[in-house]
């Protein structure tokens, strides 16, 4: 395919703002400052695999995976309902899924902090039913709630897009061939929505594993995620080299997960990236 001249601004943009910064990050990761002089070293990488940091990484991986699974469990049925031709309010409800995204996610997170706090309405309601000594905020569950809430639309939208594209005739054909509605879901809907599921998973998992603001605010500094660990290296430790190393480690691992979920037929994600 001949590359259009219009693509050059993009190429320039990508080189300037993606390739160059990445090269800088890699440079910092591979160097260290000793007595004011720059030396090349791989020590940062061996330090990055210290058990304490690996533990934080595994925790982030687990939390992001769990958030993604929950998003899928909620998002798929929701997308199914929204895309149903028999459901008149589908378009309106889709708007309701999208509208919260118009608001800054920090504001939404602060709203959740209010809802979940010890004197928030959810706790008050639970206390009414006799639930005491429970804390909804500042633990791993709270962080997962925050992640699920913030990234749910990124799961719903691609699945929705893949579902509404399914040719209605296919259902009629399945019915004519004797499939009941469950079988037609299993043999028609599900396989045809796989591209949507895959981009939904990618778009939920990647931002979830790299997030740090949600874990800081809803985890109360008790649940450190990898993104926060990286931020700390720059902010408090003033160790750019090690911060860069941790970033590279994270990028490589995210890249691996991206490759694992890559699907050449998948075009559904384009609208959000």
């Amino acid at each position, binding site marked *: 395919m001949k590359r259009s001249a219009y693509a050059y601004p993009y190429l320039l943009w990508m080189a300037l703002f993606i390739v160059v910064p990445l090269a800088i990050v890699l440079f910092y990761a591979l160097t260290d400052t000793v007595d004011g002089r720059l030396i090349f070293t791989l020590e940062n990488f061996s330090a990055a695999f210290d058990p304490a940091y690996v533990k934080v990484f595994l925790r982030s991986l687990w939390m992001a995976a769990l958030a993604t699974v929950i998003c899928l469990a909620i998002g798929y049925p929701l997308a199914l309902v929204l895309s149903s031709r028999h459901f008149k309010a589908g378009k309106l409800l889709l708007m309701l899924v999208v509208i919260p995204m118009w608001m800054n996610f920090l504001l939404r997170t602060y709203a959740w902090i209010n809802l979940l706090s010890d004197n928030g309405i959810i706790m008050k309601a639970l206390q009414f039913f006799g639930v005491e000594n429970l804390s909804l*905020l500042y633990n791993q569950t709270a962080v997962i709630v925050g992640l699920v809430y913030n990234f749910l639309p990124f799961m719903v939208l691609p699945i929705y897009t893949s579902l509404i594209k399914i040719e209605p005739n296919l259902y009629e054909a399945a019915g004519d061939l004797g499939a009941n509605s469950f079988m037609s879901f299993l043999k028609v809907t599900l396989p045809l929505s796989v591209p949507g599921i895959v981009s939904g998973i990618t778009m939920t998992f990647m931002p979830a594993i790299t997030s740090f603001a949600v874990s800081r605010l809803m985890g109360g500094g008790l649940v450190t995620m990898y993104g926060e660990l990286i931020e700390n290296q720059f*902010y*408090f430790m003033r160790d750019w080299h090690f911060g860069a190393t941790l970033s590279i480690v994270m990028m490589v691992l995210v890249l691996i997960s991206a490759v694992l979920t890559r699907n050449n037929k998948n075009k559904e994600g384009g609208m959000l990236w």
Partner: protein
Amino acid sequence: MKLWTRILSVSLALLFCFALTACGGGDSSGKTTLRVYNWGDYIDPDVLSEFEEQNPDIRVVYDTFDSNEGMLAKLDGGARYDVLFPSEYMVEKMIQEDWLMELDLSKIPNVEYIDQRFLNLAFDPENKYSVPYTWGTLGILYNTTMVTEPVDSWGILFSEEYAGKIIMYDSVRDSMAVALKYLGYSVNEHDEARLKEAGDLLAKQKQNGLVKAYMTDTVKEAMIGGNAALAVVYSGDAVLCMDETDGNADLAYAVPKEGSNLFFDNIVISKDCESLDAAYRFINYLCDPAVAARNIAYIGYSTPSSAAAQIMGEAYLNDPVFMPDEETLARCEVFLDLGSLTGVYNRIWESVKLQ
């Protein structure tokens, strides 16, 4: 469809070129830009807008940070400001690392209103680089409906009785100060065995589920909302939390008997300052007693300006949170720059947070 893609790419290309040229452009209004970097919630917004009204040739660009270390990280990253507000140990570090401009105090005549005891302090002996802005203590803010016993020791933060109801300060120097003071050591302790002991104490506190959360600025909402029993806070935040109108009347503040941190936040001019005249006018304005008094009433910290304190009146002068007595102050220590030990403190704190 194809036409649309073309139109889109052309407009994006134009936008891109425009963005590049826009970056190079200066301020077309002819105003001098003054870049100010201060703590969050640390100035009365009216004071700021009034300064701009009185000085129509100056436009203030105002950014905020939530820790000394965060501020320095921003400078490390290449951000440049004219006027900054670091705490004493950070002033010391910034002097050593050559970030600051020597002040010409004759350009800040309002310095005469500042109480002598807040001038010529150890971190900047001749006030060559800094002018004091506020001061205060680190202490315990507690909810009297949840804590009935007298609060006079840091030990209450390590007591099982309040498990899950304690908010610690999410910053290395302050949390370490709590543990070090409780153990009877200095907030600037240099002995690594003692530092480890303090770290172990904080780690145990977290492990045993005593800590509800680590917070900085958000602690105010949590305490006002009655969501925790005890919190490590700075005196000014305590004042705001206990405020009669927007605060919580059940809250009280104490500086523990083991002693605490006494801090001074200061105004400095960066070496990269591009509008020195505007910077001096801004600092002098903030040191004006009437302005300082209004500012203090808004942010809740204590003022080093004796004239401003007089304007604040009796209630302020007799309030032990604003004006701790001599005996309390004698127990408190000022943070010093840790030099090469900074890394040791940081690693101990990181291991507490990560476990």
